[in-house]
């Protein structure tokens, strides 16, 4: 009987997947040759009765604007609410970086000038109205968030074939379309109900949004709390938890107290000084939640007179940092020393033997400093990523060992972000080290596009060698070639020490005793790639309310 159980489960899973249609043969939409797409079938799961309340603490105030995909900014936080209230045509899920969502089938013409989708049958918004391709078209045409201009500039027209079939025609090859249309990267693929949006308007939608996602918003107090109830008409499965309450709690000590008193079941951002307390509390659990690597940048390295103009000095900085010690001090040994500045979960990121953890060798670093003409070191300004000022101090202590004496400039979040957003121009002078982290999704190319090419507003590296490769990448319609080029650029950035990777950050989340399953099994909620938060929410299970 025991041996038979797994076979039965497999059979049930396969049976459950077939109505999705994605496992079966789909009739084609486009004529002509097609590009190869790697979109995995959705996993339709068994329906059950939702129970219990999951109370979640965000680490900052809640923004009702997050509930409106049409104004989706670059912030990954928004996706947490997309995954609650809305649903995307294609999106990251635990089993795949790109999984079918509302769409059950997609095609891309081999020349990347047309993209087609077929919606799965019977989709409904929370108000019971059907979700059709008219909503998909309207969402695309009214999207105003991040990358909106790219989407609008490339679009020639949208062809609605029927209620379930839609084709986007582009003016020129749009090879990045499927990457950008992915719900993990932008908001344009999260479908908004046209009839309702037009009726209630922008403000009305933010206050009382409806979507086609697993949860519907039942109440909110702007900035403080949002309450969501399970939507039993969700196509993939009935959510396991009946109510999800999200609270905005800035103070980490308050979040910790909430976990300890049982008022919270899940709290984000439990790193820093509270981490030992969380780890030592036997009633609580935690997930390491690796996001992206920390790295150092030298904004003025290319300017005359900058000590960082010399590769040996940049390498000396890397050699002087004791990464294992830093990891122990900052994250109780949870994080991992890392050899790349791009998250390993981002496609095409160099990792493992391709990007080994840089060695810690103070003697060698001193020799390099002497060879570069700085035997007595020099003074620098150090810009830590707020509020990680302690970490900045620790790095400066390491650098002091090779004569680099730093002055820490503590900036507030907005001021720091404003500087970083301007790239090298935002950090004038040629003796500054900037500490940064950016767990953005969209493949390694998105990290390169932002930080390592001349044309980006936030460029910190502008090198002819990289530009040549990047230009080639942008012109190429060959995915394999693009991957090779992206890796080559990373190789240059690392070999030349333009960026110095530190460690893969863990943005620890605390979990209360009411969350199921008991024990370490809760780690499954963090399986979605490139997800700083544990979505999808419909799979979360808690004990029934008392």
């Amino acid at each position, binding site marked *: 009987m025991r041996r038979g159980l797994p076979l039965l489960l497999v059979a049930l899973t396969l049976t459950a997947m077939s109505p999705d249609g994605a496992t079966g043969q789909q009739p084609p939409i486009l004529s002509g040759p097609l590009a190869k797409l790697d979109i995995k079938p959705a996993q339709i799961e068994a329906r059950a009765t939702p129970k219990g309340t999951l109370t979640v603490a965000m680490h*900052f105030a809640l923004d009702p604007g997050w509930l409106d995909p049409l104004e989706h900014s*670059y912030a990954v936080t928004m996706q947490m609410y997309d995954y609650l209230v809305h649903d995307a045509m294609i999106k990251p899920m635990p089993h795949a970086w790109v999984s079918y969502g509302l769409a059950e089938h997609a095609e891309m013409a081999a020349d990347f000038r047309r993209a087609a989708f077929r919606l799965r049958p019977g989709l409904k918004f929370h108000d019971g109205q059907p979700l059709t391709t008219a909503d998909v078209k309207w969402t695309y045409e009214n999207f105003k968030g991040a990358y909106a201009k790219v989407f609008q500039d490339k679009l020639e027209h949208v062809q609605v074939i029927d209620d379930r079939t839609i084709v986007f025609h582009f003016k020129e090859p749009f090879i990045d379309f499927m990457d950008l249309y992915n719900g993990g990267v932008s908001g344009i693929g999260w479908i908004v109900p046209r009839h309702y949006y037009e009726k209630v308007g922008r403000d009305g939608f*933010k206050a009382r949004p409806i979507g086609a996602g697993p949860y519907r918003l039942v109440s909110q107090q702007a*900035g403080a709390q949002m309450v969501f109830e399970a939507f039993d008409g969700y196509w993939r499965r009935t959510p396991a938890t009946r109510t999800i309450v999200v609270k905005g709690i800035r*103070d980490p000590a*308050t979040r910790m*107290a909430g976990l300890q008193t049982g008022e919270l079941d899940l709290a984000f951002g439990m790193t820093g000084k509270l981490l030992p307390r969380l780890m030592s509390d036997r009633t609580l659990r935690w997930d390491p939640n690796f996001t992206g690597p920390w790295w150092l940048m030298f904004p003025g390295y290319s300017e005359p007179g900058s000590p960082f103009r010399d590769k040996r000095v940049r390498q000396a900085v890397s050699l002087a940092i004791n990464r294992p010690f830093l990891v122990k001090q900052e994250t109780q040994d949870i994080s991992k020393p890392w050899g790349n500045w791009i998250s390993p979960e981002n496609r095409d990121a160099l990792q493992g033997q391709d990007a080994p953890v840089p060695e810690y060798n103070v003697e060698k670093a001193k020799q390099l400093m002497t060879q570069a003409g700085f035997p007595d070191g020099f003074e620098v300004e150090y810009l830590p990523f707020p509020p990680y000022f302690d970490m900045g101090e620790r790095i400066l202590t390491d650098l002091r060992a090779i004569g680099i004496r730093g002055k820490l400039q503590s900036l507030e979040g907005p001021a720091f972000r404003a500087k970083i*957003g301007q790239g090298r121009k935002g950090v004038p002078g040629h003796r500054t080290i900037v500490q940064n982290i950016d767990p953005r999704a969209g493949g390694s190319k998105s990290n390169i596009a932002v930080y390592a090419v001349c044309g980006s*507003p936030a460029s910190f590296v502008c090198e002819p060698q990289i530009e040549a490769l990047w230009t080639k990448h942008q012109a190429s319609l060959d995915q394999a070639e693009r991957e090779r080029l992206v890796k080559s650029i990373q190789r240059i950035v690392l070999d030349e020490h333009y960026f110095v990777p530190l460690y893969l950050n863990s943005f620890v989340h605390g979990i209360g005793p009411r969350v199921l399953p008991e024990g370490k099994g809760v780690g499954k909620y963090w399986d979605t790639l490139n997800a700083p938060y544990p979505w999808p929410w419909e799979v979360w299970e808690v004990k029934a309310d008392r």
Partner: protein
Amino acid sequence: MKRYVLVRALYSVVTLWLLVTIIFGLVRLTGDPVAMKAEAGADPAYVAQLRHSWGLDQPLHRQYLGFVSRLLRGDFGHSFEKSLPVRDIYFERLPNSLKLGFAAFLFSLALGVPFGMLSALKVNSWWDSAGKMVALLGLSMPGFFVGLVLIIIFGIQLGWLPVLGKGPSAVVLGEPSTWITFWFRDWAHLVMPAFALGWYFSGAMLRITRSGMLDVLGSDYIKLVRLKGVPESVVVAKHALKNSLIPVLTFAGLNLLVMVNVAIVIEVIFNWPGVGQLLYDALSNRDFPMVQGVVLMSGLLIVVLNFTIDVLYGYVDPRIRLSR
């Protein structure tokens, strides 16, 4: 009297205009709010669109004129961070702050006034020393410290009281029944934040009550009443207390406004969704319209209160209105 009221009203208007102008200028010195929304490498078109939709692409004087003209129509603008009208968000939060402020106010009165009286009546006794100690602790132990200690003892160790937020009851604008239930439900949530907030003010209240009471008790008319053989309890309750409470009540009124409007630290520690936390979030995120709105509403309350007090003073004491 009419002229006096008009002059005071004019002063109030000028004060509000100054406040409007200063807060408009100050928030704009704190940095670029667009940086909070648009991450590094954001498409310049998106950044420009954001700046345009927030009106930040206009010259400063245009922004100012637009801001003032909207204010005159009762429109505080849209929050950058919370994407909804500032007025709606503020009035959604205000009842929570009023509830916390009133509870803390009552606590500070309940502790400060009786202890202050007792200290004055039993001057230089054990009671007086105890009162001085309470006042000292009240003034020297910051509210956040008291709050954290309360959380550890009554929230985490004993598990008697909740530590987060205000509880589920809320004021719903279209449902008047909720306005009443809101005040009388979820008291367990209120106990610790009200104590932590009222604690500081109770110390100050105690000191003022004590000194006011001592002044009155030493005055000639009290001596006369005592000489008449009136019982001490009547002297205190009927003659001394009434007069000694005048400065206490003036001070308490201002304290109440402070507790309602700027209980930032306590609201953050207890995650109390009030106006103080709103202001803190807005400042942290460079949410100009929200900062302007909250500061102006707080300023308006203070100006209105001061105006009312001025008018009442003028009404009660003719010397005041004649001297202006």
